[in-house]
């Protein structure tokens, strides 16, 4: 069973703060992590490999520092990793990203053979589009199942799973190859062990640029992105919390004034 898992680097905290001047994320020395949904996808891949044999390749598109999260995936048990990194890939929307990821997967397939399974997290917690999985499947020309929340059966030829569909569970059987996007909490992602962490330092990690994957530059990065981000802004909150002090009767007086709009 050959499995590819797409992972994305995202900010480590749910409480992301934005710089009000530059409208960019304040990283403040905090490290990025594997997108939490992608960790469930990786864990699923590792469990399938343990059951059926085969190999797991993790793929990401990003800046060179993304290598760190790929090493993290390798330390958990992935066999090799591919990082697609090139200035030409910068500023990509979901269409250009899925195009680039598909080129990376195709290039790996030239050496390893066709993937039976491609797994993605349901969505990235920083973008929330949930578009990469389905778009990548289209680029690869394979079927896809989104929001998978339980794998019921799997063999070398097919799988049966449950997906979440408009609040209901839908049971789906599909022939491989297939792309699945994986919901959260379908498993408990493992922590790496010392052996894995040390192995990951020298494990196969391929760094490929646009030329390596023979990319059509018109379809990559900002140039290849029909979605243009015109402006980002930090939502302004106008809620204010006032703490009333004093005795209950004093607080009630202040509260009355506030409710009447008198400051």
């Amino acid at each position: 069973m050959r499995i590819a898992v797409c992972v994305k680097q995202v900010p480590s905290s749910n409480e992301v703060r934005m710089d009000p001047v530059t409208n960019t994320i304040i990283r403040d020395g905090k490290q990025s992590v594997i997108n939490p949904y992608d960790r469930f996808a990786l864990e699923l891949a590792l469990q399938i490999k343990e059951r059926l044999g085969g190999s797991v390749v993790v793929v990401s598109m990003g800046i060179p520092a993304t290598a760190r999260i790929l090493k993290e995936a390798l330390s958990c048990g992935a066999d090799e990793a591919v990082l697609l990194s090139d200035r030409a890939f910068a500023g990509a929307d979901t269409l250009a990203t899925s195009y680039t990821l598909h080129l990376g997967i195709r290039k790996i397939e030239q050496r390893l053979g066709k993937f039976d399974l491609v797994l993605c997290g349901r969505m990235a917690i920083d973008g929330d589009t949930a578009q990469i999985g389905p778009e990548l499947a289209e680029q690869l020309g394979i079927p896809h199942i989104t929001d998978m929340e339980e794998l019921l059966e799997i063999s070398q030829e097919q799988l049966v799973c449950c997906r979440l569909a408009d609040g209901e569970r839908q049971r789906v059987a599909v022939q491989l190859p297939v792309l699945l996007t994986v919901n959260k909490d379908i498993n408990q992602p493992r922590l790496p062990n010392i052996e894995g962490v040390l192995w990951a330092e020298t494990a196969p990690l391929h760094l490929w640029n646009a030329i390596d994957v023979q990319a059509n530059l018109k379809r990559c990065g900002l140039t290849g992105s029909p979605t243009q981000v015109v402006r980002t802004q930090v939502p302004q909150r106008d809620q204010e919390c006032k703490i009333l002090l004093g005795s209950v009767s004093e607080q009630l007086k202040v509260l009355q004034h506030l409710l009447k709009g008198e400051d």
Partner: protein
Amino acid sequence: MESLIRTMDDSLAEVLRDESRNSGRAESVSFPRSEEEVLKVLAYCRSRGISITVQGARTGLAAAAVPYGGHVLNCSKMNQVIGCRQDEHGRFILTCQPGVILSELKKAIDSKSFDMSLWSDESKACFEKVRKAERQFFPPDPTEASATIGGMAACNASGARTFAYKSMRAHVDRVRMVLTTGKVVDVRRGQATAQGRSLELSLLPEGLLQLDLPTYQMPLTKNAAGYYVEDDMDAVDLLVGSDGTLGVMTEIDCILVPHPTFIWGVSCFFPREQEAVEFVIAARAQVADLVALESFDGNALQLLREQRLMSSAFSRLPQVPEDYGYCIYAELHGSEEGCMLEALKKLGDLTESVGGDRKHTWVARNEADLALLQFFRHAVPESTNLLIDRRKQVCPVITKLSTDMSVPDDKLREVVAMYRRGLAEVGLESAAWGHIGNNHIHVNLLPRDEDEFVRGKALYQRWAEAVVAMGGAVAAEHGIGKTKVAMLKSMYGEKHIQEMRAVKVAFDPLQLLGQGNLFPVEGGEQQ
């Protein structure tokens, strides 16, 4: 005054208890919001001869916050960070009121976001420097992150990282303390130091406190038993760890340090306790960048396995395989990834050298994974508390008997063997975990009925005497409070207890504060 001092009623019953699972009684309660209100409360009690128990978040495990009658002065409403400064070493220092909650302080430091509406211009200007500086953090990390800074200072709290960063005392630069006399002590580190064992402290608005400090030698181990005293000591060190017996802290200046670039946590599993102990002894001698070495024995791991199945709240705990018999959690802090990897490799090599397997380890290298291992660590005491609460419903007399003793490094093997021998002899159920790097293991005796409880208490007292004979401390981090008063006497003897009492009387002439803490009172000791 009526709105400040409230008569005790059922709605306030929670102030009668703390996390030690002991409860007491009180006639009145106050929740002052300022030092001025604290002074008013103390004056009211002084004029009427009412005893006072000072409280923070009541997360203490030695019943120091449990009242023996009188008045409860609860500091939870004094919960603001009120200033910021930079000292001559370039360190940033935050002035905290005693009711500031540790988890909230840490969050505010991490996000560099404070309510500065009451801050001076100097503080605001200094905080601008904090904003521009590298990420900062406050190292003390007691298991209970809902503890207050005042409570932590009162009992000289510590936690897993004390192994490298030391206890709360090392992170306090200044204490402002209101005395029952109405006078105030306001002392910064370096401003008032003892001459040998004589200490003079200036009082505000005027006056001088002249103290003959106790003459005992403290054990050379992690220690939170009795007043901190040594030759030529700093006055701040006496106030920190005074267990609510000298005064009411109204301001505590907390020293920040730069946040480490890398924080990695590693749980290493071993077949048996013996291998784990050998691993600890080797690791602390050979591994650089180590800031914590924590242990979980087989019974603690089994409790977690059961709790994980019983309660959805624990379901995200990592599953511990059945053949894992003992766990050591090691934490590494560093600035170079290469050094961190070297240290990790060393931990792996040591694991294998004592008979473990470096595949039987969990490595956490990001905040989410570290939080998971922290949850694992905190789930152990939670699980035993739940267990004891269930048993207490059947037999109300019993409570958890959790040891808090430390010994010198060269006594680790001996003390572990003593615990196992004692448990086998008495036949009590137990779970042990704690700060094995500091030779400070919390052995939790889990009695099922009154008979087992009585036998457990006797065993604990026996252990305390043996620990003192090994040169150890009977209270390493929870303080003496009310639960270990007899053990303090075993440790120092009556003469030194009286020397401590003389210090207390100098601060608190009517002995109104913290009755039952450190010193015995009529009515007996808490369990």
